[in-house]
């Protein structure tokens, strides 16, 4: 009994900080419809800022609370500034580009934080008055936990009053419920949006500041927190604050018991909860249906044309040059080229789903990772020949795609993005926690090609043949009846249905094809790197794939290939010559989104007024 009570209190205490961050995210989304990846960065900044302020201010309760509130206010201002400088230029851009831009902000903030506060984890000391513990049923519970337990409902009540008893709050609620009203606001709108960003970011900063005495401020808080906050928001229902609190409680309490009873399950647990909730209630506990995400906006309504004879010749020349490149390139360049070749297939597989399919996968690394682990395990544990092992990768990844795709074609917009992200996180934590099979954090090493393929030219030819074959298959599929049916289901689902097409089945099949080919890319990657690691499934890799596709342009067919080359070149060159590559990459992403919301190839195609891109 005492165990249950103590774990319960522990869970409720953790729920508060999670709720603060999630409520900020949900308020911002509700009004502006921006899914703000940088929200996790504000949480992290809140913790760092609180560290600085509390260590400058005099010790004691006053200094502590002053520091916490000061940090929250500063972060609120930073959020308002971000809205004012960047995001307001993107409200008309497709949802995905907003996401991409906020991800650029995440990268920039990571390096700025590193410069300002250094790489060490920073732990603040609690003021004396909050240090003790209280005896609850024979076990001690920290006083600070009790304070946190109170904070959640207090903030919930304050937000309720703000939204129901003030004119401004009424405006916010109206804006959340009625998009057209927001458009009609005109000048008021931009002030409202800035204010909403201030409030939302303040809540994230407060969450980070309050978490500081429990958990050291560290540089990887941002992505960890944003993932959890997304799950909470999605489980609670986008735009619903009460929903966010209930979801935070549900998840934090389950986590608390999970850690105590079966520690291995904790990373997965939250995502399992989310998958179950979304399967039963596709709009979350208290959410309402939302409009479908505008994947590429109007830029998708461009007719795609198959390659003309000129383009075909050009493609053949590129492949021939690539095939001969091992004769002239050095080892380092070959490593990079191999990587680009494999990632191009990965990006093409995501593009197939996102572009023609209009289905955005935020966790495409799941299929890449499953493919790579399938190959690694087949070679390591069964000693299968390389090519046989590689055949296993699309099978394994495709089977995951069958399961996930079934859910995905029933969801849309942000919910779809979050479910795919959740699946990737489940695969990632499985890779880390099932160490008997996957080698855990250390991964599986010594996954080398068969003897006949060890020579660098032969090996590259194998990689090139399989990757180019996969890309060719996807290209053919785009211009074949299947790709047309997929675009039909995206462009006008009612018409597709009325013509005898089942849009759900077509999208599901596309999901499976795309995940299978992502799996092939993962399998090749394992061979090229000589091993597999959980980072292959990490959220960063899913984002990389999105960046490659979006940099090149969703509405074009060659786009993802160019995007891959640009992306790998940027990342690689930058990390070789500077230690602030995240900062630069983030700035480049932001500038690119501002300058070419249709992607590089999309922009070039429009510039030439030639849809044959």
């Amino acid at each position, binding site marked *: 009994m005492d165990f249950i009570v103590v774990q319960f209190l522990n869970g409720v205490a953790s729920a508060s900080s999670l709720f603060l961050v999630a409520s900020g995210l949900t308020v911002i989304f509700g009004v502006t419809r921006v899914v703000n990846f940088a929200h996790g960065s504000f949480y992290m900044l809140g913790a760092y800022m609180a560290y600085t302020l509390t260590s400058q201010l005099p010790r004691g309760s006053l200094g502590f609370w002053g520091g916490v509130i000061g940090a929250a206010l500063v972060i609120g201002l930073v959020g308002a500034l971000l809205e004012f400088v960047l995001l307001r230029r993107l409200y008309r851009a497709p949802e995905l580009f907003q996401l991409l831009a906020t991800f650029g902000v995440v990268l920039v903030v990571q390096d700025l934080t590193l410069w300002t506060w250094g790489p060490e984890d920073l732990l603040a000391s609690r003021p004396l008055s909050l240090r003790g513990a209280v005896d609850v049923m024979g076990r001690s519970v920290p006083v600070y936990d009790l304070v946190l337990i109170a904070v959640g409902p207090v903030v919930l009540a304050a937000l309720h009053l703000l939204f129901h008893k003030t004119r401004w709050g009424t405006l916010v609620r109206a804006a959340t419920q009625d998009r057209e009203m927001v458009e009609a606001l005109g000048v008021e709108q931009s002030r409202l949006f800035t204010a909403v960003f201030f409030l939302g970011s303040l809540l994230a900063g407060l969450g980070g500041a309050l978490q500081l005495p429990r958990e050291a401020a560290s540089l990887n808080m941002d992505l960890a927190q944003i993932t959890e906050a997304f799950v909470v928001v999605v489980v609670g229902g986008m735009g619903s604050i009460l929903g966010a609190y209930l979801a935070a409680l549900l998840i934090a309490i389950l986590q608390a018991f999970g850690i105590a009873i079966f520690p291995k399950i904790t990373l997965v647990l939250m995502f399992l909860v989310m998958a179950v909730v979304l399967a039963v209630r596709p709009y979350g506990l208290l959410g309402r249906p939302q409009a479908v995400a505008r994947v590429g906006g109007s830029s998708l309504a461009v007719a795609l044309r*198959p390659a003309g004879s000129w383009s075909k010749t050009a493609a053949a020349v590129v492949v021939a040059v690539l095939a001969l490149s091992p004769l002239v390139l050095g080892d380092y360049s070959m490593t990079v080229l191999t990587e680009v070749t494999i990632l191009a297939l990965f990006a093409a597989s995501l593009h197939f789903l996102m572009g023609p399919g209009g289905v955005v996968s935020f966790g495409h690394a799941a299929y890449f990772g499953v493919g790579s682990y399938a190959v690694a395990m087949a070679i390591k544990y069964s000693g299968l020949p390389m090519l046989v092992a590689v055949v296993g990768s699309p099978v394994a990844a495709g089977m995951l795609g069958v399961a996930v795709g079934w859910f995905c074609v029933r969801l849309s917009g942000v919910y779809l993005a979050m479910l795919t992200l959740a699946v990737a996180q489940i695969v990632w934590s499985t890779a880390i926690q099932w160490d008997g099979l996957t080698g855990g954090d250390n991964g599986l090493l010594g996954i080398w090609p068969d003897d006949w393929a060890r020579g660098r030219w032969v090996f590259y030819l194998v990689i090139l043949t399989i990757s180019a074959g996969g890309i060719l298959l996807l290209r053919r599929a785009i211009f074949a*009846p299947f790709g047309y*049916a997929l675009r039909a289901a995206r462009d006008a689902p*009612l*018409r597709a249905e009325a*013509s*005898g097409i089942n849009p759900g089945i077509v999208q599901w099949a596309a999901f499976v094809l795309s995940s299978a080919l992502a799996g092939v890319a993962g399998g090749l990657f394992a061979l090229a790197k000589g091993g597999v690691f959980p980072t292959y499934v990490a959220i960063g890799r899913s984002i990389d794939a999105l960046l490659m596709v979006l940099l090149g342009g969703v509405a074009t067919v060659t786009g993802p290939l160019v995007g891959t080359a640009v992306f790998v070149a940027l990342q690689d060159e930058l990390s070789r010559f500077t230690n602030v590559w995240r900062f630069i990459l983030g700035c480049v992403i932001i500038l690119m989104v501002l300058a070419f919301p249709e992607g590089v190839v999309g922009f070039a195609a429009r510039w030439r007024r030639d849809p044959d891109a």
Partner: protein
Amino acid sequence: MLEVEGLAKSFGGVRAVQGVTFSVAAGEIVALIGPNGAGKSTCFNMLNGQLRPDSGRIVISGRNSTGLPPRKVARLAVGRTFQVAQTYGSMTVRENVQMALIAHRREFFGLWRRASDLHVEEAMALLDRVGMAEQADRSCGVLAYGDAKRVELAVALAGGPKLLLMDEPTAGMAPAERTALMALAASLARAQGIAILFTEHDMDVVFTHAERVLVLDRGRIIAQGTPETVRADPAVRAVYLGSTAPVGASHAGS
């Protein structure tokens, strides 16, 4: 061809359609008219399978289609055009028709052959019939609205329908274009023995082309018969004008 019996549908408290019974014979051109909100689109959406009726029965060509999804209804040789034209904006005009032909033949899982090489002649013949052959290679996303409606007609015909459901086929078009489009649809249908059920606000269009008229008001059929009998019906006049002037003397509805 089409028999509807006791069809009903409510949205929350709103009884959009209640106890609607009628039939359409093979090759017959029938108009379903009524003021805004009368339940016409709701009827169409039930006939085509987009909405599941609360009660009632729909029989198409002798097969009970009640509750079937739109793609299964389409397989019973039912074509449909929408109140707001639904075309594939990322495809050319010809590809829109080709897609319909591919769908009709269930070839849409093909991964290798080019879709734009399939059924070219058939697609061009259909486009020729609706007068869109010259624009075959334009992107459907950039068409004038009236042209998109013509493409939609060609697409609906591609499935070889025996029954064509047209919800406000001329909405949003200029008056001259309206008459032309409906005349085109009617002549194509007569030539091939296709039955048409259409809704329309423009009474000139209705009385020129319909062989029979059904009048819907607040979810119920209040009159039906030849254009002449319906035009003279006092209940219809009351609904349309609140007066005794003959319907069609001015353009009713909106």
